[in-house]
């Protein structure tokens, strides 16, 4: 379990990092918290010739308000999601998801941007960018761009990121009055990848649901918004009939993968149960 030899470059600026990657070509990887990449290197599943350490780039750090959004720097550690007051106030769904992300040692090093960039379909944060309607800010050889979370996750570990690009920040619309959120997951042990997990952000007028975004993880190749279920609820209230309709809609919204441990029908069942429980909580004003 020793990685193949690699070169290491510590970038101080985004430009340095991008240039280093451009020079090295496909054989380079950016490394931030390293919580997924380092095991992959040790297992020799990946063996890049160059690691570009972006963990010391000041422009990737920090959380701040920018107009109607919260700009969360890509290097924000998972543990900061638990401790930062701006997160608690303006992105409480991320605060709610954070305790479920792995274990404290991993949360101390793993980064938000790294998690979104890896796009593990079983991870909490990539799915939450969908629920939040976030935008991903990307820097690359041809400049900066923003991609909606809805357009970011393409397939298994495949995103809108092009080779040589890196995520610089994630922009999240500020949480406001009239919104409700809920998060939970079903994991066999605390800190494990969930069998199924879900985060919801709903906007209300009184009890009427004006808009609702429901994102699941651990249900397929990518984090998944369930638009059928959302449609079943939009314009209604969280009554038992609408919750049942939303649960029923998951059958079309989700196509869980074959798995010897969690058969597709079981995962769909668990997704329905979880959705029912979360919507029940939202109905109670959660």
């Amino acid at each position, binding site marked *: 379990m020793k990685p193949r030899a690699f070169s290491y470059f510590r970038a101080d600026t985004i430009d340095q990092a991008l240039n280093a990657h451009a020079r090295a070509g496909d054989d380079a990887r950016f490394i931030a918290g390293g919580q997924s990449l380092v095991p992959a290197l040790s297992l020799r599943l990946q063996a890049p010739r160059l690691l570009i350490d972006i963990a010391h780039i000041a422009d990737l750090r920090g959380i701040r308000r920018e107009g109607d959004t919260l700009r969360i720097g890509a290097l924000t550690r998972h543990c900061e999601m638990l401790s930062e007051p701006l997160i608690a106030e303006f992105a409480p769904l991320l605060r709610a998801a954070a305790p479920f992300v792995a274990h404290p040692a991993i949360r101390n090093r793993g980064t938000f941007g790294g998690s979104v960039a890896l796009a593990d379909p079983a991870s909490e944060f990539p799915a939450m960018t969908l629920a939040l309607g976030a935008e991903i800010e990307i820097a690359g050889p041809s400049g900066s761009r923003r991609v909606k979370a809805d357009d970011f996750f393409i397939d298994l570990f495949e995103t809108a990121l092009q080779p040589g690009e890196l995520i610089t920040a994630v922009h999240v619309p500020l949480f406001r009055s009239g919104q409700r959120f809920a998060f939970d997951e*079903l994991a*066999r042990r605390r800190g*494990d990848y969930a069998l199924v997990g879900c985060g919801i952000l709903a906007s209300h007028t009184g009890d009427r649901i004006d808009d609702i975004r429901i994102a699941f993880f651990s249900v397929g190749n990518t984090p998944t918004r369930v638009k059928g279920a959302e449609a079943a609820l939009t314009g209604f209230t969280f009554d038992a009939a609408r919750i049942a309709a939303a649960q029923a809609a998951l059958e079309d919204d989700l196509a869980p993968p074959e798995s010897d441990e969690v058969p597709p029908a*079981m995962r769909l*069942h668990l997704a329905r*149960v979880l959705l029912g429980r979360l919507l029940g909580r939202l109905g109670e004003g959660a």
Partner: protein
Amino acid sequence: MSAPLTSLDRPNSYIGRSVPRPNAKRLLAGRGRYVSDLRLPRMLHAAFLRSPHAHAKIISIDIEQARALEGVHLVATGADLAKICTPWTGTLDHFKGMTSAPQLPLPLDRVVWAGQAVVAVVAETRAIAEDALELIEVEYEDLLVVVDIDCAREVGTPLVNPGSANNVCFRSQLDSGGVDDVFASAAHVVEEEFSFGRHTAVTLEPRAIVADYDPGSEMLTVHHGTQTPYQFQDLYSRHYGIPEARVRVIATDIGGSFGMKLHVYHEDMAVVGLSILLGRPVKYVADRIESFVSDIHARDHRVRARIALDAKGEILAMDVHDLTAIGAFSTYPRTSVVEGNQVIRLIGAPYRFKNYRAALEVIFQNKVQTSQYRAVGHPIACAVTERLVDMAAAKVGLDPFAIRERNVIADDAYPQTSPTGYRFEALSHQECLRRLHAMMDYDALRAEQADLRKRGVYRGIGIATFVEITNPSPAFYGVGGARISSQDGAIVSLTPTGEVRCLISVTEQGQGTEAIISQIVADQLGLAQEHVKVITGDTEVTPHGGATWACRGAGIGGETALQATRVLKRNILEIAALILQEQPAALDIIDGEVVDAATRQQRLPISEIARIAYFRSDTLPPGTQAQLTVSHHFAPQGYPFAFTNGIQGCSLEVDVETGFIKLLKHFVVEDCGRIINPMLVDEQLRGGVVQGLGAALFEECRYSDTGQLINGSLADYLVPMAMEMPDIVIAHVETPTADTALGAKGCGEAGTAAASACVLNAVNDALTPFGATISTIPITPAKILKALKRF
């Protein structure tokens, strides 16, 4: 008013006292000396190329590129090591008719499980060795893979070992007679088929070894993370043809073992050979994935069993068939059939019935070997017995406690012989049942359960009685021809300053062996415990003995220390009597002082006796030769095993929508005879229970149809962790064995023995309103939801 004085109020009374482990501070301070951390001068590192196939012919191995890589010192194949290492066979004579193919460090022409080591590389660093592995080309020709146990038993199925008639390793039968007649006429018969997942030990520190062959002195020193240094001294000596006195095995601190680290592993044997070939120290530490595919696995049994009862719920007979698959070889030197053997002999053990029949079938397949792991066979025997008893209780209309009270062997009915031939000296099932009932507040728990059920909350309560095998005599391995000692040795010395040093053959794995030995020595001699130093785990220093396995450290090792110390005390008092012109019998030792036995008046510090004996022997009467070092050996006699017993209970909640189980509380009442250190016994029980709960809910080595282990990482193989574990409440009954002066029996496996059975019973109890049942472990959400027909 203060409590009445007890024996614990005597000075230096350490037996029965919770004192901290003297070595705990060192380990907590990060000062442990683990083989994984060891660096010797000129040390090289080994890595192994492993088979990607579960069964294949090796057509060719090309090592030229690997050998040419800078930093590589040796690339060795099976043929290279076969020149210096004799093969081994994992059979024992007392398992009549068992077979297993001879094994070598690395295979010559065929691989038999996915993950088997095929080629070894030794290099300057582990990283270079792994680079070299990528340069080795092995051409394989696939052979038909035998994975499934039913497939392995079919006539005409591919053979794991060519040349054998079938895939059977061993068959055994027990029959007390009359079983069919009893079943034919019984008022109630209950039957079930159970299955138990394969799982493995997952030690915090993986297997680690540094072999250091010095061609100058023709001496082999092996630093080995093992429980049994003497056994390995013998094995390395015999298989590499090095005289035993020139083989030294040092077992220092070890990061967990649980029975997994007393078997011969191919890589470990290979590393010894690599060091001999190179004349340099060679280190190998298994990484986590290597551990999953090469450490022994355990369990993997399928048991069909039935129980017959009379109309009042008295158990009359049991009939059992145990089928187990053990991988491609039987493990050396303890075999892979002991677990099955113990399953069929322990089933029904707490109960009074007479008619018993059991058949055991042990089958080869293309997976890694199984063998002894904490609580060998016990959890299976316990789960089968206790679930059947619960099913019978439901059928007869008795409460789980009531049916057990009716059927356990009465506390005043000992000695007893079980229908399987086990001889019980004295057990305490009735007392344990009473204590558990009170401790659980059973009636209140049942009332709460009924109340919550009305509100859609499904709680389950489960109990499980057990019998545990401890303090094994030579009946365990010795009679089968294994050079595995059931005796232990101790050397106890009074040092010149009046302290005591004890070298003992039992070893320390973190359970507190050294602590209890120092307690026993201090107690028996009359000395403060901090003045006793215990040294373990070095064949050059400590006397030959069985070391630590099968719950023998306290019962056998402890008795060895006790008897050795009594001899030393007698010798000290003889010298004291000469100096003081007293009779030895009139003297005693308290707190390091020789005292008048009757008045406890201090006469002379033992340090003064040591000073005179070591430095001024001229002042002693002519002819006096002070013997202040005593060596003593003790082998268990009397009963072949010291059986212990106990009962566990658990309370849990099943989420019937998700299939998730929440463990609420676990209870243990346990009787391990004389308790030396209650805190350590409780820790052993809690650790054991947690391992049993892991088996019940989480742990399983899952294989694909092609024999690939598909969950060989700690992200996929779930071990029990703190967040999911309940509080574990413990109480004790003490029935000392009369076979020893100490009276201690083992306690290391009791927790594991019954924890999974308890959970199985509790889950089934919770599912009663739905008419759903579970008969396999681990009990996963998928199994519960399937049973409830939720998907």
